[in-house]
């Protein structure tokens, strides 16, 4: 049934359709509306037989999830940014123990400097944590992928993180088709735990493992993620059969089949890129888009298959490894070097950091430069070089030049010049 609602409310309703048993939560912008709405659904009795608990920290929240999931509960929580970092130890623990928890990450930048707006730094901080990490482009996909996430998590006994861009999706009011409960029940079977704390059949979970078996345990975690590659594709098909729309899969291609230049990205920026490609195609550009829907497992084969006929790939990402560069770009570089060949040019573009608007105009400039063979290997889109140089000069001139962020804010006139340098 069609509704007009914010991404967060839509996700909360989708979670409720999946009938979770336990939901611990802790507020952090921009995911808070999801757990707020779930509290209403539980308290008002619309979501029955569910323990909802507003706990004292994200670390407690994920730990609560671990206890619940290990006792056989379908378990959900949501977080973002600093919250994810605060729960980090438990994030690794949940995947290490193989517990099928589903968590929404309302993607947000990581401080310092503190910043509540959207980018993918939080998601990338847990890229090696062993969780399945899916990205969505729209609120409709957010609804659909959360339903698939429970099925995937429980089939593999692995936690799944659904990444949705903070504010851009969580706070955007759009049209969403919410599935009927019967459809969800048809798609998502009741949770049968692979391991469960049960007095009728006692087992120990979380024993110490030394060098004699640690490698095998870790390898099996990797193996499970590889298994997920086929499972994600298969479940996307099942989903489409029941719900009548295509909302999943490892990657999504938009005019990429015959394109010479392919933009690669994850999340809501795909919408802006599609607008741009529509324009450029009308003008005769050979350009397309590859949207990565699954980041972990990394769908190397699907990516190579989609990129094999292109000559240039522009990897656009909303985060980077400081001191190294684009994370996605280097992963795609590695995958394509191995399977496509060295002729494919990979350009790394970092943009949209801390919520900076990603305009069609700026994206178009990238494609224009690429088509002329003039796009640099590494680009920080819309970087204000003047501001950077001013601060670098200040640091060179004065050993006590003060905190960078505040200096720059003063330069651009955001804060008053209480201290002059």
């Amino acid at each position, binding site marked *: 049934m069609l509704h007009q609602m914010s991404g967060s409310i839509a996700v909360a309703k989708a979670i409720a359709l999946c009938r979770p048993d*336990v939901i611990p939560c802790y507020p952090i912008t921009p995911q808070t509306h999801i757990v707020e709405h779930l509290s209403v659904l539980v308290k008002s009795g619309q979501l029955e037989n569910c323990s909802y608990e507003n706990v*004292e920290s994200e670390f407690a929240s994920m730990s609560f999830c671990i206890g619940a999931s*290990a006792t056989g509960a379908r378990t959900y929580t949501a977080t973002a940014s600093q919250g994810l970092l605060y729960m980090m130890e438990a994030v690794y623990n949940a995947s290490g123990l193989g517990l099928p928890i589903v968590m929404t990450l309302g993607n947000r930048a990581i401080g310092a400097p503190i910043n509540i707006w959207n980018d993918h730094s939080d998601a990338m901080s847990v890229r090696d944590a062993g969780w399945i990490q899916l990205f969505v482009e729209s609120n409709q996909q957010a609804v659909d992928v959360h339903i698939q996430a429970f099925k995937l998590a429980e089939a593999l006994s692995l936690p799944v993180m659904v990444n949705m861009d903070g504010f851009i999706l969580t706070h955007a009011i759009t049209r969403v088709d919410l599935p009927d409960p019967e459809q969800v029940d048809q798609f998502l079977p009741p949770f049968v735990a692979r391991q469960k*704390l049960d007095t009728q059949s*006692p087992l120990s979970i979380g024993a110490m493992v030394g060098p004699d078996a640690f490698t095998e345990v870790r390898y099996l975690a990797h193996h499970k993620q590889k298994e997920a590659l086929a499972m994600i594709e298969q479940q996307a098909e099942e989903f489409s059969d029941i719900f009548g729309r295509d909302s999943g899969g490892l990657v999504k291609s938009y005019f990429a089949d015959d394109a010479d230049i392919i933009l690669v990205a994850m999340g809501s920026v795909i919408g802006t890129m599609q607008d741009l490609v529509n324009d450029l195609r009308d003008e005769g550009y050979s350009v397309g888009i590859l949207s990565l829907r699954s980041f972990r497992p990394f769908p190397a084969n699907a990516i190579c298959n989609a990129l094999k006929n292109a000559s240039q790939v522009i990897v656009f990402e909303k985060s980077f490894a400081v001191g190294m560069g684009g994370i996605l770009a280097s992963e795609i570089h590695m995958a394509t070097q191995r399977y496509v060949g060295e002729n494919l040019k990979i350009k790394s573009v970092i943009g949209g950091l801390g919520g900076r608007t990603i305009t069609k105009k700026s994206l178009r400039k990238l494609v224009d430069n690429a088509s002329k063979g003039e796009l640099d290997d590494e680009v920080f889109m819309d970087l204000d070089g003047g501001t950077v140089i001013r601060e670098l000069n200040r640091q060179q001139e004065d050993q006590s030049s003060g905190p960078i962020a505040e200096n720059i804010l003063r330069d651009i006139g955001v804060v008053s010049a209480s201290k002059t340098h």
Partner: protein
Amino acid sequence: MTRKAQSAADEQTVKFYQTGTFTVGNRLLDEEFRTVQATQERSNSIDSGHRACQGCGQALGARYALDTAMRVTDNQIIAANATGCLEVFTTPYPETAWSIPWIHSLFGNVASVASGIAATLKAKGDTTTRVIAQGGDGGTTDIGFACLSGMFDRNDDVLFICYDNGGYMNTGVQRSSATPGGARTSTTMPVGDHPGSSFTTGKYLPAIAMAHEIPYVATASVHDLHDLERKIEKAMTFRGARYIQIDVPCPLGWGSEPSQTIKLARLGVQSGLVPLFEAEYGELSNSTKIRYQVPVEEYLQLQRRFAHVLKPANVDQLETIRALAEKNIKRYRLL
């Protein structure tokens, strides 16, 4: 006792070495006074073969605590464990000493893991299975403190047991916020003008638990296992958050003889340094009176961690420890 167990007991050679002591497990006692451990029906929640040190107070305390909880709940216990000695010595891969459903997640989150287990039981309408969280003093008073306080605040239906040996013994005897003032640890060595652990304002968790006004708080000691069993039993009669702190001597960390564990536990109580009491909903409801009061030196002299405290140069430290015992005696009405 069943007939089968009775006949098995009859066939055993009865050792009399415990006669006349306050130690339990004494098969010479009348049946009604025996501990769970003295019967052959004990659940062996923690089975033999684990890797605890000789004279480990924690292994003893945990065995009694869990077997009692198992008995009073008809074996319906799930336990969550913080990282620490108890976790490590019971689960050397691929073995486990646990015959009950047991989970270890992290060092600082055991209270929250247990809360999650309790929340699941609630969601599924299971009112018979009960949850126990357990950890050492580090996993309780330091790194696990936030999660524990959250669990108290929500009054989650969990019994949290802290095995207090006064330091991070598993990582090599470092100071925790439960380390007694003056004690030598590997991060508070007896050097300089203030040898040993500093005399801070302290972080006495039973009092902090009482401040949360949870249904039941108790302290216990492994020298009086009857009392420990009674307190576990009582804790299981309440719903909501409960806290029991058990004083467990650690031969490794305390520098004591393994054979002195029970004696040390008793001297801790008799000197007033380890008060035994119970509290309900934030109010002190019962104190265990000291039977034979002993000077704190008797307790300290059996532990190498306090060797420097007994030297004349550090008499001020000894005075501070004496004053602490006096304060406990007054506050918890131990005489």
